[in-house]
């Protein structure tokens, strides 16, 4: 084989290898997110002190306090129901019966204290072809 070709192949492989290596290293750092369902959380099958729970907002369960950044609602996966409270900016996509992902920990009185709230509403959003169908808020 032409030595020049080998030189190029080796360089290409080094770059590609570096990309793969960085990818693999990054995957092992926190940042990926398991979603657990409301039932899995309520039944306490998962360990840890920070959870990401996926479910739907129970209709007419949303309570907002005018003037403050507090929000309370209930979420469900169809079998279990979990009361959630959240403090912070609520995305406009958050509505009754929309799909939410909350991240946080169990607080006092059986209420889940969320520090992050993501809302996805594919049905209402189907037209937003390329921008922010979900967006993170909170810290």
């Amino acid at each position: 084989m032409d030595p020049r070709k080998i030189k190029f192949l080796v360089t290409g492989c080094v770059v590609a290898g570096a990309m793969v290596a960085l990818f693999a290293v990054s995957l092992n750092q926190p940042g990926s997110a398991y979603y657990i369902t409301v039932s899995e959380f309520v039944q306490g099958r998962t360990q840890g002190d920070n959870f990401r729970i996926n479910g739907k907002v129970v209709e007419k369960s949303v309570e907002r306090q005018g003037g403050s950044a507090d929000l309370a609602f209930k979420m469900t996966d169809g079998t279990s129901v979990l009361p959630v409270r959240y403090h912070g900016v609520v995305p406009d996509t958050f509505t009754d019966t929309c799909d939410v992902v909350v991240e946080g920990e169990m607080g006092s009185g059986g209420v889940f204290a969320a520090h992050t709230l993501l809302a996805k509403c594919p049905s209402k959003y189907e037209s937003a072809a390329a921008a922010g169908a979900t967006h993170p808020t909170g810290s």
Partner: protein
Amino acid sequence: MIVLIGQYALLLAVLTALWGMVAGALAGISGSDGLVASSRRAICATFALVTTTVLALEHSLLTDQFGVLYVAQNSHRTQPIPYKISALWSGQAGSLLLWAWILSLFALAAVLINRRRNRPLMPWVQAVLSGIQVFFGYVLVLVTPPLAVGIAPADGVGMNPLLQNYWMMIHPPTLYLGYVGVAVPFAFGMAALLSRQTGDVWIRTTRRWTIFAWLCLGTGILLGSYWAYIELGWGGYWAWDPVENASFMPWLTATAFLHSVILQEQKRMLKVWNAVLVILTFSLAIFGTFLTRSGVLNSVHAFTGSGLGPHFGVFLAVLVLGSLGLLIWRLPDLRSEHRLDSLISRESSFLLNNLIFVGIAFAVFVLTTWPIWSELATGRNVSMGVPIFNRVTIPWFLVLIALSGVGPVIAWRRASLRSLKNAFLGPVIIAAAVAAGLAAAGVRQVYPLLFYFCSVFVFGTVLGEFWRGARARQATASESFSTALGRLVWRNKRRYGGYVVHLGIILCVIGIAGSSAYKREFTWESVRPGTTMDFDGFRLTYDRHRIETMPEHQSVVMETTLTRNGRTLAVMTPERRSFQRVDNPTTEVAIYSMILPRSVRDLARVGEDVYLVPVSVDERSGLASFKVMVNPFVNWLWLGGVVNILGTLLAVLPDRRERAMLALTLEENEENKAAVA
């Protein structure tokens, strides 16, 4: 009546597209002129028919015919006229119709422009474009008919208020122009393989199409980001969301293609690679549409349940396997006519650029589709967060930016050490000095420093190119510097247009790096009217609140004044709106952009935004919570987008020399064929 005409027009369009495909393929095989012409007429007819359907749907939207389900879902009686028009692309069926219409328009344009040219390619181009039309026509007739009728409600549901924004009116069509625009180079590429005309004719012919599609994709992405920034109220413009990634991936591979075709044109290299890239780009464009339409990422199970997913899945599989199969079949025709000489050369820098662009696209693809694979493998839906996307891609973007300063300047074939020193030593020194200055001024994070180093470096090399070129002209033609510069650019529009785009990208990079690394956030809760809030050298006074009643909604408007060093900068009036039709309130943020600095100390604040989010407000007492974000440099991103558009326009202006080149290549081909015969 009009609805009925629209429905039948769509049905007929599928048939004409089918004939366009069959006749085109038969013409490609037999070489019959009659069949080519027949296929061409079919493409004209398809355009007329799809246009009829689009007009029928627009007519239904404008005349409030809620018997049409799509109209009932996306419009209502008092919806403002512009939003009635744009409702055409605010729902699924309508936006697919728009897709199909743009495709039929592009097919028509491509066919008419090349009516008397590219005789061997055109039958196959027509067949491929018609084939894509058949798929979209089929989906529109059988899966999501835009003109399906039902029992008319008294009034429609109306468009989601979040979408009622001028930027959202133009964002989807722009993006679709990009997605569909890619279909033309793809069709020419496939035609080149099918007809075994694998030289650079197809690439030269579709150069403007490629650039146009690339520009539309990029602009569409930026418009979407801008809409998210001003409308969604979270203070950011990019979150590696699947729908964003869906449009970003084809942009990445299209950018790679844009660069690698230069190697095929100049050096007759990378023929296979270019074919792979055009296949990849078009497949990703279809995949993007599939990803946003099928719901596959929410859950694999949602995919099989939804109407569109399986159809797109099958089409995508046929597309990818078919075109790659064709490529493998034609591999013997695609030998490179040149070889690589040195690692330190323009060829190498382009290859590295391609490798990285495709690598990033692949990484984004894997991360975006991770929920699918993880759910298939373990039954758990694991999605990848923003930090992982950033960690995986940012180092490579850094390399790409540095390359954008190297590639245009470094010599073809083999660059000597001396020429490297001439071209790069100056910019490297200036960039290092700027980076050292920034570090001394307190910039400590590594990535921003590296990004600013690379940005200054690229500015230096690219401006150096303008400077050297103009000086060289000046020396021979005894012109003034500005005349020389103007003529230089005008005579080499493609080259210097490309440089301007590189500068635009650098502006974007400065904006992105600055606004992500130095964003600051402040919150105030339960603030009474009359309170002042101090942050970051600014003072925000919450003066009063008032209620505004509009036909569509009721707003609580918070009047605030932004001052700095005692000078009033702006009155900011964020709003919380509640709509009659939709149960959740929406947030209207207020943004103050610092374009010109008021003092020397504020120089680093040029392009900075003060982004005021009304978190909540009590409409009686006016008790409110605010969040303020200071987003430095963010306006450089939008400015970079505008510069990109200008640079791209310069690069596609008609060029005498280029036309001569294309004519020459076509002539050569004719001669070769004559010689063979």
